[in-house]
């Protein structure tokens, strides 16, 4: 008895001791991890917080002291910059952003859903080759089209107009959108479609009533992605919008040249431009993440 219990007891005690030690080490390591992550989170929060606070301070305050002094003197915060900015016609660029973003998102979803459906569920010659073209276009940089499309818009008379900007965004959003939706559509059980086709339903009706409603999660991912991409774009607006059709990004960019003297315009403007993306992001972040995971291309 004793000869058996003795050896079995000592490893038991050993593991217990090691268990305690490693638990202590875990606890200490866990504490360290927490501290590191808190510091990192501060690194990610402070810049945006800085923008917000700067946008809420008068120019004179921003020139004389750092924004972090608001921690001790919160009375200096004011909405003056915002009301001044809204009085200068910044609102028109806000509505331009909306007028560009909403159609560019809807068109991409509609056109890409149709094409994705065709790629997923129709037989036609050259289907694979055509889809390879879509895949190839995924990584094409926007720069390639700036000069040719500017020339084309000049001929068509839509240079500097909102429809021109919308169409450009729609075209460049399509490869990713088609790719994403087609991959979603092929996952839909074929029995559903075959049943509908057996019933003699027209193809557009199957698409609109059976397939498209099923694709809501994918459409949500695509929608939020395209929305943010268009809303946040600067380069395309810079080339194709004029002062009448310019979105917020371009309006703010034109202020950058005098940076330092006009922080009271830039900071609230930049913050206004990111409110809607942030609200969207926090409300639909799961779709946003799904879209990211689906294809990180742009």
């Amino acid at each position: 008895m004793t000869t058996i219990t003795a050896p079995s007891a000592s490893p038991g005690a050993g593991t217990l001791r090691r268990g305690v030690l490693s638990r202590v080490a875990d606890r200490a390591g866990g504490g360290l991890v927490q501290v590191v992550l808190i510091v990192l989170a501060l690194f990610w929060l402070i810049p945006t917080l800085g923008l917000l606070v700067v946008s809420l301070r008068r120019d004179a305050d921003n020139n004389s002291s750092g924004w972090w002094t608001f921690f001790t003197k919160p009375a200096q915060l004011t909405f003056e910059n915002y009301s001044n900015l809204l009085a200068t016609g910044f609102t028109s660029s806000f509505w331009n952003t909306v007028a560009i973003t909403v159609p560019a998102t809807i068109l991409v979803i509609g056109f890409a859903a149709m094409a994705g459906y065709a790629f997923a569920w129709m037989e036609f010659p050259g289907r694979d080759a055509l889809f390879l073209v879509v895949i190839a276009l995924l990584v094409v940089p926007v720069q390639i089209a700036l000069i040719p499309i500017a020339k084309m818009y000049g001929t068509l008379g839509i240079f500097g107009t909102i429809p021109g900007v919308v169409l450009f965004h729609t075209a460049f959003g399509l490869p990713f959108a088609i790719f994403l939706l087609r991959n979603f559509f092929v996952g839909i059980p074929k029995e559903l479609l075959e049943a509908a086709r057996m019933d003699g339903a027209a193809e557009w009706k199957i698409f609109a009533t059976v397939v498209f409603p099923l694709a809501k999660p994918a459409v949500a991912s695509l929608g939020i992605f395209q929305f943010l991409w268009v809303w946040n774009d600067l380069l395309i607006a810079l080339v194709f919008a004029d002062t009448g059709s310019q979105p917020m990004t371009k309006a703010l960019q034109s202020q950058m040249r005098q940076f330092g003297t006009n922080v009271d315009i830039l900071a609230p403007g930049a913050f206004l431009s990111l409110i809607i993306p942030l609200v969207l992001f926090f409300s639909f972040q799961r779709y946003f993440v799904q879209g990211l995971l689906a294809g990180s291309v742009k």
Partner: protein
Amino acid sequence: MTERLDGPQTPRGDGDVARGASPGPDETPQPPTATHPALEDVATGQDGTTDSTTAAATSAGPPALATGPAAPKAGYSGSGNLGPSPKVAVFFLLPAFVLLGAWMVYPIIFSLVRSLYDAGGGTFVGVDNYAAIFTDSATLTTIRNNLIWVVVAPSLVTVLGLLFAVLTERVRWATAFKLVVFMPMAVSLLASGVIFRLVYEQDPDRGVANAIITSVHDVFASSSGYPGARPRENDQAPAVADKGTVVTRQPVQAGGQVLIPLVGLKTEALPSGAAAAKEASAAPGELSGTVWLDFTPGGGTVNKIDGTEKGMPDVTVEAVAGGAVKATTTTAADGTFHFTGLPAGSYQVRLPQENFAQPFSGATWLGPTLITPAIIGAFIWVWAGFAMVLIAAGLSAIPRDALEAARIDGATEWQVFRRITIPLLSPVLLVVLVTMIINTLKVFDLVFIIAPGSVQPQANVIALEMWRVSFGGGGNQGLGSALAIFLLVLVLPFMAINIRRFRREQA
């Protein structure tokens, strides 16, 4: 951790940054396989690598990786004979392909041709525009900068993303952390640029980066300098300025006393500990003296210590003989200093330059040397969340059994991480890396917004130069087209990887 293993919902759950906070509304009815295919694929991509090493290499194309091997086959085998006629397909494809053709394919051809013509487009110049890219010093700078970007930024983003993903696995508030780090993804690069212009402001009283650096610096180095303090400029002053230092006009013998009156400083600039100045007490063989602010508002006698005048504490004082420093001391709160035990002889008392140096004011982030690293910092701030979320999804797809088995076999945590986690993650790491490489090749907004106009030539990148040359006042659309084609050529390898991978899946 265990809830991540529960079957088909796993990918969906992991895709949700705020999963912990909100269970997420259930989707409208959907087919059993309708879990977002791409999400499923991040997971399946993981599993695939356990039995094939080549999968890691093939998954390089970000979009292609998202294509699960199973999904496309199901689709293609699924389309039976019941499908509609090709005419209907044309109807479905037409809107998209009109746009793709006119806005993407045609411009590629147009740019290719246009790049062979001169600035105005009237004269054929062959490959001169391309030659110009590789000979002009301005465009060579852009290429060099893009090279720095491609080498530095993607790997930093990937490593940080991996670090964040691994660390957040160990804390309860991982969701909150992920949301914070991920948030910049939703914000426009213009807004991010404005944010970082504010962060990088030179003045430590305005830019938070320099504010942090200077306060950290001040913890380790004394900051009690007197910038601007100087002796009076007249012949009676007992001390004179000499190449940034202040020296006594007359040599002093050991045992003597000196007065070093300084001006050019506001009384408020003196440290709060400064006491009323007084003449140093004389002791035999001791060289002593006083450094004080010789200024009384509304009067006072020049070069004399008046009642209200204060001493300057903590000033470094040197006793110099024959060009060499023989002794060093610092002044007391009343501005007095004493050199004891000096050998007899004649000395010059000197206040070295460090007493009058400007205070440390941080780095010149937006200057020509630091501008590219500074912008890369902003880029990392924007994209680390993306890398973290992708890698975290990959991490959660790693079978826990494999890790547990290794731990039971006695592997240390580091060995588990190095030998099991990293290899299993490599496809995702590659996706992040490649996506970031494509991103850095195309980087435009951040450089355009963060680099001040005067520094833009030093910070310039290809995408920005393309815009500048064609639309931003350069007026040379021939060179602009060549730059656009050059950019396209740079991303061609990634296009090829995507296509190859897709074809393999179809085979």
